């Protein structure tokens, strides 16, 4: 099945789903004001796209989302690098982290709104708290997966701890961090809408939905808001996946076909020529490390192992967040 057929089938599936919603809405299983048919909802959603106040609502939500996510990155990445490279700190802080993490972040909404009131601070705090974990755990996990040979090589050449961290470990961990960021981005959107839904006044996408719910005949507006929330989620995820592919093309190997992988995996660094011959592990490894590829196979000559198995894909391991299992391809 080629790409075009897949797209056509996908469009057909979307149409079928819409048709089903339409049918349920029109059949009168539930009252029409309770569950309006899909066409009305979509028309309303399109109409909302030109609505100034609605766009302001979305902008407010997105701003809180971006702020919270940015703060989470600023906290989680350095902390993850610290935890992953200094075992003593890891041991010391781990218990506190394990203590904090299982708490469902939505449950913090009442406490934080009592502490900070219902405003942007509350929202950003909650988003930050919930988004820290995936990034943090993926960073620590990615550091553990760095090619030890590349690190040893740099050490042999007299590089210090910090420059090894910056030259080898950080680039090698970057794909993991971005995968964590993608999970966090979705979580952040969940928290943003959840907080707004509960606070009930002010501005934001969630507040638009909460207020529409109170109006008579408001389900159509609620559903239109939900459609936009879904579109936001899709766009955010799509942009991040696209960015991931652009920035780390070799990671595609973990997903794509083997043959295509090898080509994609050799091209970016251009170190294929050096790799030829008897698998000179030293220079290749450090080149791979500097290039940022979690490119373990490169250290052992070409074809030693299928590259699909060694690219930096976070596998489910330990915590659910470190798993990229949910990720679409």
């Amino acid at each position, binding site marked *: 099945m080629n790409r075009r057929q897949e797209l056509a089938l996908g469009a057909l599936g979307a149409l079928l789903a819409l048709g089903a919603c339409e049918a349920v809405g029109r059949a009168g299983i539930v009252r029409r004001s309770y569950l309006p048919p899909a066409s009305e909802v979509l028309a309303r959603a399109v109409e909302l796209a030109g609505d100034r106040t609605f766009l302001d609502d979305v902008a407010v939500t997105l701003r809180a989302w971006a702020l919270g996510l940015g703060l989470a990155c600023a906290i989680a990445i350095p902390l993850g690098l610290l935890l992953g490279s200094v075992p003593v700190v890891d041991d010391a802080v781990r218990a506190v982290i394990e203590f904090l993490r299982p708490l*469902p972040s939505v449950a913090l909404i009442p406490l934080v709104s009592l502490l900070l009131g219902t405003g942007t601070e509350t929202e950003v705090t909650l988003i930050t708290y919930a988004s820290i974990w995936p990034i943090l755990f993926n960073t620590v996990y990615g550091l553990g997966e760095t090619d*030890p040979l590349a690190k040893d090589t740099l050490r042999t050449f007299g590089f210090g701890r910090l420059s090894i961290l910056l030259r080898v470990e950080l680039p090698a961990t970057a794909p993991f961090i971005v995968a964590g960021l993608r999970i966090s981005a979705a979580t952040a959107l969940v928290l943003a809408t959840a907080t707004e839904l509960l606070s009930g006044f002010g501005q934001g996408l969630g507040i638009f939905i909460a207020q529409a719910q109170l109006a008579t005949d408001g389900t159509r507006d609620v559903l239109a808001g939900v459609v936009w929330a879904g579109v936001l*989620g899709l766009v955010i995820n799509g942009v991040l996946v696209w960015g991931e592919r652009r920035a780390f093309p070799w990671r595609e190997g973990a997903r794509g076909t083997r043959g295509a992988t090898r080509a994609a995996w050799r091209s970016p660094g251009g170190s294929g020529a050096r790799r030829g011959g008897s698998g000179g592990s030293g220079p290749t490894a450090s080149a791979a490390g500097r290039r940022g590829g979690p490119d373990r196979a490169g250290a052992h000559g070409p074809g030693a192992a299928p590259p699909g198995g060694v690219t930096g894909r976070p596998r489910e391991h330990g915590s659910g967040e470190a798993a990229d299992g949910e990720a679409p391809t």
Partner: protein
Amino acid sequence: MRGAPTHESRRPGDHGAAARTAHLVGETAARTARLARGALLRRLVLVLALTAWQLGARAHGSVYFPPPARIARHAYDLWFSGPVGHAFLTPAAVDTILPSLGRMAAGFVLAAVVGVGLGILVGRSPRAYALCDPVLQFARALPPPTLVPVFVVVFDFGTPMQLASIVFSAIWPVLINTAEGARDTDPLRLDVAAVLRLTAVERLWFLLLPSALPRIFAGLRLSLSLCLILMVFSELLPGTANGIGFALTDAQSRSDLLTVWAVLVLLGALGYLLNTGLLAIVKRLTGKRSHERRSKGSHKSSRTESRKGRST
């Protein structure tokens, strides 16, 4: 979370065998020492942090951050000081914790069963997968809390609405992961199954499920945390009469911070127990297989071996 797989996936390269063994022995000893030190350090730091909080809260006397000892005491008084016959649960606990847990368990089981079933169906055929993929991606991209108001209108307040919210948000990770796992089944082995004329049920049991299992569990873990979140969230909304989330909003409206903290501790403990429980089940069920699959370097051979181990 790190450590264990590294020395396995590291290839010997041009090290000598003896050097490698020595290295491994050294590494093991070092790791044991580190683990012992780590366990000690962890407890120490946790105790220190709690003590600092306790002392700080007492010195400050802040209403917002009560000392941990009082929170624990309050939680105990609220929920766990009941008679022995009721497993030490107070009537308040029976009213609060059990309904929540019941809804969550029902939602999770429903989402898991339906998700795995549909996922296998969708993942079996490339056409079905292409057909459903955009819809599934959209459904998963929806932030689940936004749908709760819709369910509030469509279903009755209370359990039906909460159950619908939980199931609708928890089903997507399982469904998508199962579909991808089933889709990744080795085509060669599907051919072998066709040659051996395995029935559909046998193919499902011996081929599709085992190969999708690691992905299914990854999906289940994501679903479980979503279930917990949605359980709390759906109870936070007005119109619920019982449950942990209700206790939380109730305490919030009375500005009873001690109870808010106690509920948070309870939820944290619940989250921890549920996650650990599911992990233990996963370990038991997948055991070696998921581990082998993880080192995909020797992808095919290890998987075939694990299959052999299963059928004997």
